[in-house]
């Protein structure tokens, strides 16, 4: 009984991790700006990696390796948003302009023009 609950908890955690990493990949490929890409990389990728590492820790049970996995989970949770913040800040310092709603309007106009053609 408890083994069944643990099995399905591991399956659910791995599925959630794969889903959030898929969302992160789609965001990094499709979003228009370095700042929005930093946003999706810091949020969804951290959550996907955290879910998957939690599933690994749950599958390992009580061993020495579980301590490594929990340490790795904590480390990813601390460092991944910090790195995304540093990257976005360096983009701001270099002078990259953020993507605004006016750019969005031009983009949709270009898209509809391309579609009607």
């Amino acid at each position, binding site marked *: 009984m408890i083994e069944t609950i643990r099995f399905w908890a591991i399956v659910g955690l791995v599925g959630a991790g794969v889903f959030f990493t898929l969302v992160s990949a789609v965001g*990094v490929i499709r979003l228009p700006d370095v700042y929005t890409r930093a946003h999706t990389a810091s949020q969804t990728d951290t959550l996907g990696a955290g879910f*998957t590492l939690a599933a690994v820790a749950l599958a390992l049970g009580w061993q020495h390796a579980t301590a490594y996995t929990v340490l790795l989970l904590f480390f990813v949770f601390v*460092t991944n948003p910090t*790195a995304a913040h540093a*990257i976005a*800040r360096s983009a701001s310092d270099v002078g*990259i302009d953020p993507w605004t709603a006016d750019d969005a309007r031009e983009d949709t106009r270009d898209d509809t023009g391309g579609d009607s053609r």
Partner: protein
Amino acid sequence: MMPTDLSEIFLVAAAVFVVLAIVMFYRAVAGPTTQDRLLAVNVLGTNTVVILALLSVALEQPWYLDIALIYALLNFLMAIAISKFTVERGGVL
């Protein structure tokens, strides 16, 4: 019965993560700015750490987790160092 099922699930998840990491190479190659490339490589490094942890539990090799921990440390250091160098010196080299 259950451990083989679990290791197969972990291997399939590792394969999906490898595919997503290869997809992420598009942004690392075609990113307009250096920061885009750096962000893509950072996400790739996080994917690599997760793949190493999944392979560690699927293939029952606990020392892969040591490599994953060192990889996460170096990945964080690389992101911080390159984002500092692009501001202060205008580039990595």
